[in-house]
C-alpha cells in the first residue's frame, strides 16, 4: 500500500543557548504515493537527521509530519508502519536470516504459519532462500544487504526508508544492488525515501531528488530537472560527474545575439542582462575545435571507454570537456573550445542563483 508523505516546516536544533546548532532549517517536501524520493547532499547536510525524524528515531524541534495523511509527530517508530534499511544493515547477529526477516512480524504477533509463508515469499523475491538458516556473520556484504531489504519488505510497510544502504559495498555490487532496489520499488510500489551522498545513485534511482546543503533544501525536482536546470551553482556543481564547468565573465551585449566576455575568451551566445554573470556549462556541452578562438592547454586525458574526458587549463581555470572515445590528443597540446547557444546555465555572479528567464533559450 502506497502512502503519501507530507513534510512541512521541519526544524531540528541540537543543543541550546549559544551552543545550539540548527541542522534542519524549515524543510518542506511533499511525496506522492509510490514515489521514490532521494535525499542527497554532502555529509552534515542534515539528510540523515531528516530521515531519522521521518522514522521517529528523532523528534523534530518544530514542524509537521504526515504519513498517509496522519500526523505522526510524537508517535513511536513502530506505530508509523515504516521499514528502514540501515547503512550497517543492523542485522540481529544472534538470529538466523529467517528470524531476522520475521522479527517485525513476530513483534506484531503475526501467527507462526503466516510468518513462515511471508518469510518464504520475501526470500524468494530476493533470491536468498538458501541462506535462511544462516547467521549474518556467515553472509557476504551483498547477501547481508539483501537480508536487510528482506527484513524491510516482510511487513509490507507504508513507507520505505533507506539510509545510504549501498555505501558499504564494492563498486560492482553497488551497481547490482542499485538495480535490485529499483526493481523492488517497481514491483512493490511502496513510497520510498532514500538518503545518499552519491549523485549517481540519486540520478539513477529517484523519481524525484531533493538536494540539501547545510540543513536547507536547495532544490527538489525530477532527475532531469535537477540535471538540466539546477537552481544555483551549488546544485549545478553537486549533480553530474564530472562536474559542471563554471566561467565567470561579463555580458557586453545582452539578448538573443549577445556577447559573453571572460578572461581569455569571447563567446557569442544568447546572454542575460549583466554585467557580471557566471556561465555553467556541462562537459558534454563544450566541444573541442582546433581553430576556435577560446584556447586551452590539455593537462589531463581520461578515457572511460564510452567517452574521453579532456581537462584543459585556461585563463578562467580548469575546463572539463567530454570528447568522443576516439579522440587522439596529447597532454601539453593547445586546442580550442566552442560552446553552442543551447544548454547554457546562467547564474548570478554574486549569489549563484539561476537566472531562470534565460531558460527559454536552451531547450534541446
Amino acid at each position, binding site marked *: 500500500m502506497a502512502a503519501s508523505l507530507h513534510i512541512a516546516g521541519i526544524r531540528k536544533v541540537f543543543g541550546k543557548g549559544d551552543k545550539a546548532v540548527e541542522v534542519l532549517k524549515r524543510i518542506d517536501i511533499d511525496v506522492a504515493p509510490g514515489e521514490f524520493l532521494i535525499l542527497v547532499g554532502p555529509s552534515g547536510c542534515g539528510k540523515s537527521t531528516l530521515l531519522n525524524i521521518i522514522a521517529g*528515531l528523532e523528534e523534530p524541534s518544530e514542524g509537521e509530519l504526515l504519513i498517509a495523511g496522519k500526523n505522526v509527530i510524537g508517535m513511536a*517508530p*513502530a506505530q508509523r508502519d*515504516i521499514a528502514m534499511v540501515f547503512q*550497517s544493515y*543492523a542485522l*540481529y*547477529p*544472534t538470529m538466523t536470516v529467517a528470524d531476522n526477516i520475521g522479527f*517485525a512480524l513476530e513483534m506484531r504477533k503475526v501467527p507462526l504459519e503466516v510468518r513462515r509463508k511471508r518469510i518464504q515469499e520475501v526470500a524468494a523475491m530476493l533470491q536468498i532462500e538458501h541462506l535462511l538458516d544462516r547467521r549474518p556473520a556467515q553472509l557476504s556484504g551483498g547477501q547481508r544487504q539483501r537480508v536487510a531489504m528482506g527484513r524491510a519488505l516482510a511487513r509490507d510497510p507504508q513507507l520505505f526508508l533507506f539510509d545510504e544502504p549501498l555505501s558499504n559495498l564494492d563498486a560492482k555490487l553497488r551497481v547490482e544492488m542499485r538495480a535490485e532496489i529499483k526493481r523492488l520499488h517497481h514491483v512493490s510500489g511502496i513510497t520510498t525515501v532514500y538518503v545518499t551522498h552519491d549523485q549517481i545513485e540519486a540520478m539513477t534511482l529517484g523519481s524525484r531528488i531533493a538536494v540539501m546543503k547545510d540543513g536547507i533544501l536547495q532544490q527538489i525536482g525530477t532527475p532531469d530537472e535537477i540535471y538540466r536546470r539546477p537552481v544555483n551553482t551549488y546544485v549545478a556543481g553537486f549533480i553530474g560527474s564530472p562536474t559542471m564547468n563554471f566561467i565567470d565573465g561579463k555580458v557586453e551585449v545582452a539578448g538573443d545575439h549577445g556577447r559573453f566576455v571572460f578572461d581569455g575568451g569571447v563567446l557569442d551566445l544568447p546572454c542575460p542582462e549583466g554585467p557580471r554573470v557566471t556561465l555553467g556549462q556541462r562537459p558534454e556541452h563544450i566541444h573541442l575545435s582546433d581553430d576556435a578562438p577560446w584556447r586551452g592547454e590539455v593537462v589531463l586525458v581520461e578515457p572511460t571507454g564510452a567517452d574521453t574526458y579532456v581537462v584543459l587549463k585556461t585563463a578562467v581555470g580548469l575546463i572539463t570537456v567530454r570528447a568522443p572515445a576516439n579522440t587522439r590528443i596529447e597532454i601539453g597540446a593547445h586546442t580550442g573550445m566552442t560552446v553552442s547557444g543551447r544548454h547554457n546555465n546562467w547564474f548570478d555572479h554574486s549569489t549563484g542563483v539561476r537566472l531562470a528567464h534565460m531558460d527559454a533559450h536552451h531547450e534541446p
Partner: protein
Amino acid sequence: MTAKPFSFGRLFVYGLLLFAAFFFLAPLYVMIVTSLKDAEQLRSGNLLSLPAGFNLESWTLAWSSACTGVDCRGLKPYFMNSVFMAVPAVLISTAWGAVNGYVLSMWRFRGSEVLFGFLLFGVFMPFQVVLLPMSQVLGFLGLSSSIAGLILVHCLAGMAGTTLFFRNYYKAIPRELVNAARIDGAGFWRIFWRIVVPMSTPIMMVTLIWQFTNIWNDFLFGVAFSGADSKPVTVGLNNMANTTSSVKSYNVDMAAAIIAGLPTMLVYVLAGQYFVKGLTAGAVKG
C-alpha cells in the same frame, strides 16, 4: 615459525618462567601433601615430603567434624552459607549490571553520563568506608546478621563494577541495531532479551567469574555483617584455623583451606576460556 637457535636470552626467559611457576605452585603442593598426611607423619616428616598414602581422613574431618570452639560440625555449614549467599548475590548483581549497562549505553537520558560518573566512584571506593552506614541500613531493614543481608551488601558493592563491565561492552554495539529493533516494533525489554542479552555471553562470563570470585573470597563483609548462623566459609575457615587446641592439626587446616578455595578454581576452569575472550572482545560484527 622456524626453530630458533639456542641462546642465553631464551634460557633466561624459560628459567624465569619455571621459577615463577614453581613459586606459585609450591604452596599448593604443600597444601595438598599436608592435607593427605596423618598427625604422625606431620610430626616426623619434612614439610615437602610425599605422604605415605592417599589418606582422605583430614578432608572428611575438615568438611564435617572439625571443631570451631565447641561447635564440631566442620566447614560444611559455613560452606553452605557461602553457597546460599554467593549464588543469588552473583546472579542478581550480574543481572543488575546488565540492565544498568543497557540503559546507560543505549537509552541515554539527560544526566546519564553524570550518573555513570558517580557509579565509577563506587568501583574505586574502599569498602571499609561503608561498613558502619551499611550496618545501620541492614538494621533498619531488619536484615542484620542474615544471609539475605549479606546478599544485599554484595549486590550493592558489586553493582558499580558489573555496570561498568556491561556498559563498556554494550557501548560497542551499534546504535542502529537498537533503532532497527525499535522500528520493527520491539520495546525496551524485548530489545534487551531478544537482541542484547544473546550478544552478551562473553561479558556475562567475565562478570560471573569476577563477581563469584569477589563474593566467595570476601572476608570483610562476612566478618562484619554475619551472625552466628550466617558466617561464610572464609570466616569459618579463619575461625577454625584459629581455634586453639592442644595440637595444631595442620592437615585438617590445609584440607579446609583447599575446600574453601575450590569453588572459585572450579568456576575459573569451567568458564575461564570466556574470561580472556570477553576482556578482549571489542566491536560486534554483524
